[in-house]
């Protein structure tokens, strides 16, 4: 099976094949023989040339997966090559075109620092979210104008809820 795995900004060609009880996985030309076994919900023990790696894999949404080891955690997207090409031809409108900011954790909005129509610089705070007794300033990821606020002070939000949009 031929796949494209997007790691950070990098699209990597990846091939996966059965190889007896094991797998042969080629990442950007680097070939690995992988023995894999489940060791609990979402967790897998991978043996590659005798080295053992325990990895937890969770599917986030669509083709996005979260992969974590004891120290590292990252998100990658797995696409089939055709989907990848289709996305590329749209000129990368997908992720970088989005200017909505969503809550990364559940919490409560304690303050709104910029109103709709106000200009913000990249990194400037737009609102303050409280979670676990701590206040966290949520900043604009780019310079622009606050197009819309989706929340108001005192409101509870869940992870993933849209907070505001910068234009």
């Amino acid at each position: 099976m031929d796949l494209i795995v997007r790691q950070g900004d990098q699209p990597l060609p990846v091939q996966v094949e059965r190889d007896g009880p094991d797998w042969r996985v080629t990442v950007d030309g680097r070939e690995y023989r992988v023995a894999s076994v489940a060791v609990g919900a979402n967790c897998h023990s991978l043996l590659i040339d005798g080295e053992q790696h325990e990895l937890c894999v969770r599917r986030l949404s669509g083709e996005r997966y979260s992969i974590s080891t004891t120290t590292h955690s990252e998100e990658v997207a797995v696409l089939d090559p055709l989907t990848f090409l289709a996305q590329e031809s749209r000129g990368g409108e997908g992720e970088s075109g989005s200017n909505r900011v969503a809550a990364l954790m559940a919490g409560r909005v304690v303050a709104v620092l910029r109103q709709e129509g106000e200009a913000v610089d990249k990194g400037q705070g737009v609102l303050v979210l409280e979670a676990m007794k701590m206040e966290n300033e949520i900043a604009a990821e780019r310079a622009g104008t606050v197009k819309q606020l989706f929340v108001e002070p005192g409101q509870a939000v869940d992870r993933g809820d849209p907070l505001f949009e910068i234009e």
Partner: protein
Amino acid sequence: MAKINKVLIVNRGEIAVRILRALADLGKRSAVIYSDPDRASLPVMLADEAYRIGPAPSRESYLRGDAIIELAGRIGADAIHPGYGFLSENATFARHCREAGILFIGPSPEAMAVMGSKVESRRMMMDAGVAVVPGGRDPLPDLEAARAFAAQLGYPVMIKAASGGGGKGMRRVAAQADLAAAYRAARSEAMASFGDDDVYLEKFIDRPRHVEIQVLGDQHGRVVSLGERECSLQRRQQKVVEEAPSPAVSPELRRQMGEAAVKAAKAVGYSNAGTVEFLLDADGESFYFLEMNTRLQVEHPVTEMVTGLDLVEWQLRISEGEPLPDEMERIEPRGHAIEVRLYAEDPYRGFAPSPGRIEVLRLPQGPGIRNDCGVHEGCEVTIHYDPMLAKLIAWGADRDQAMRRLRRALGELRVEGIQTTAPLFLRLLDDPDFIAGRLDIAMLDRKMASGELALPAPPNPDLAPIAAALAHFQRTARTTAPNPGRGRRTGWRHAARRESLHGGGRWI
């Protein structure tokens, strides 16, 4: 005095678990209170009895002092253990317990009240001859007096608002030339902030350590020191890593600090467990009283591991009137213990809180490892309370072995579903200053800001693509299988089983 049979634990999380374990160890009955989101929490599962106290907000649950005292009476609890935080340093609550005839496991409300006030305790320590940060106890009448006193103390000095707090009305003065401007600025800031422009002078202590002494006092006038804890590793005044003994404390300094702590405790007629916090100057010799915490401290396990004493057990024995034995005066630390506080925070995203469901929890085990953990696999970490999940403590015959075991334990630890501070501790254990024991209270913030503790790249960046591609292969291959419903649950597992059978093994 009365024997305690049942104790109501007025707390949650790891400290509730710690206390109920001590009760079980003593054959006493434990009852816990829980707020709604804590119904399926570990303390409720491990306690003998559990009672709902209210909804999530602390004001409506864990802080409902009178409802708690009423509950204790209703269920026949002889005593209340407050843990730390919540009502543990609330002298009024302790007084209400006494009035209701329920033992409050801690010192007298009077001792709590004195030590609860920074100004009052500083004054009392000065009277008792315990060193505080050198400086005035009274406001300065004018700039001339400030200049004379600063010259006497020696620069740098701090000007502080008498009614101050939170850094307002506070100025560091490096040399006499800067004094006049700083004096005026501090006064006007103090007036603006507190409506009171009184200021006083303290010596500025540069890069001190936070070293504290654990004391126990019985109800018969004996107070003993159980040695020090090194707590300099802090993030914004919050302790993160603690150890005992301190790499900076010699047996002679330990004796001196212990004597000062006992003097401080005796000055307020202290009984039960308490901690006297000191700043230890970078010279490694001078130390100054900071405050006394009139309760069990989060970091008490490191003292337990080097003394062999169970501090919570002793809190209960003291409350029952048992005198401290003579041998306790002569306890020497054995080996070395280090504790790290595991928070549900992402240290590499500005310590952002990370609530969620703990999908996998595998605690490290084996020689020298102790887990004081307040959560279980499958539980939800909510946004309502302090994000500390657990404390991981490693003991070694010396500091080197303790560090090595802690590093190993952190590698074994597995928490899935939420982020924790564990990766930061692994980095810290590779830091040359930490390894050498060169610590000060600003060190962690400094090193986080400088990027010295940044996470290194993963050893093999191809691992994540490999794992994701395998998961994707399995998932998409499954959709063409005859029974997708079953496949969805077993998933990758199927391959594992097939592999095992192929290898000749047998899975029963």
